[in-house]
């Protein structure tokens, strides 16, 4: 099987890890899945914080292997996420839009983010809880 070092882009982070790529499937160690996405493979399925997505009946083989590796392409399908890669197949990217839309429509909660200002200082939206916030985008172009 073809093992190589890839970069996985997920939720603003970029993680370098080794993967087995076969066709559309991208197999990672469960530790690397956690490192790249924050999701952990447990007895209850894939978990992040208190939220768990159980592995649906009949889909275990598509998602996991006996050696403990996880297919991130199947994991993305399970979450309704898109996974795309570039032509030389060294970078894979997951979207955040589908999961953000689902949770925002359910809760009407403003999605949190962390971004730098011009000096490099990081700011989070949630730091401003307790105040009204006007969030405005612009661009130099």
């Amino acid at each position: 099987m073809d093992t190589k070092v890839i970069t996985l882009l997920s939720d603003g982070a970029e993680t370098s890890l080794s993967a087995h790529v076969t066709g559309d499937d991208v197999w990672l160690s469960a530790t690397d899945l956690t490192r790249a996405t924050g999701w952990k493979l447990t007895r209850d399925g894939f978990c992040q914080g208190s939220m768990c997505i159980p592995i649906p009946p009949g889909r275990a083989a598509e998602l996991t292997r006996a050696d403990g590796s996880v297919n991130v392409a199947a994991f993305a399908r399970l979450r309704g996420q898109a996974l795309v890669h570039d032509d030389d197949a060294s970078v894979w990217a997951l979207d955040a839009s589908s999961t953000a839309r689902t949770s925002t429509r359910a809760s009407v909660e403003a999605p949190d983010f962390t971004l730098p200002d011009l000096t490099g200082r990081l700011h989070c939206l949630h730091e401003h809880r307790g105040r009204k916030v006007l969030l405005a985008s612009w661009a130099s172009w």
Partner: protein
Amino acid sequence: MDLPVWQALYTELAARNFVVITVAMDAGGAADAGQWIEAAAPTHPSLIDVQHRVAELYDWVNVPSIAWIDEDGRIVRPNDPGFAGEYFRGMMEPDFDFQAMMSEAQQQQARYLAAVRDWVERGPACPYALTPDQVRERLAGPNADHARAAAYFRLGTYLQHHGRSDAAQAAFAHAKSLRPESWNYKRQAWHLEEMGKSGGPEFWAEVKALGNRPYYPRSEL
């Protein structure tokens, strides 16, 4: 540029438990957005978003896009064009009336800022503060094409930062074809391809191709 307007509004209302956060959708980072931020000398958080992450999370396809968020972190207005309007669209016509455009722009700005002040003053009693159900009606559900477009755009910004401009443009091309209504994708990709192209003939041809359709979503204010 809107930054000086937002900074002035923040200065005016900061003591009323209100903050403005401005976010530059600029894959070129500080090299592109920095001079505008420096000129506005913001005391509010003025952030740079090289991945257009906020646009992805809030499902915004254009600049400016604006959300109002209450004290509990809930969205009460998800997506306004603010005081931007359609008036710029005739700008390339020989008989375009710049005076009329300026006066319409000023009126829209005054109207929008008055609405924000009313919300800061009255909270949920402000008629422009939407209920959770009204907000939900204005939010789109998951869409497979839009999700792929967002993933390709993220891939493109990464490739651009790693010096692979051609591969980046290929990824942006996927994003643009999967979500053609995103001006952010189109104009950012043009800008990275060639300085000035985001407001060049390609841009104006696409604006013209809209016909009777709006450039900005309707603000209903």
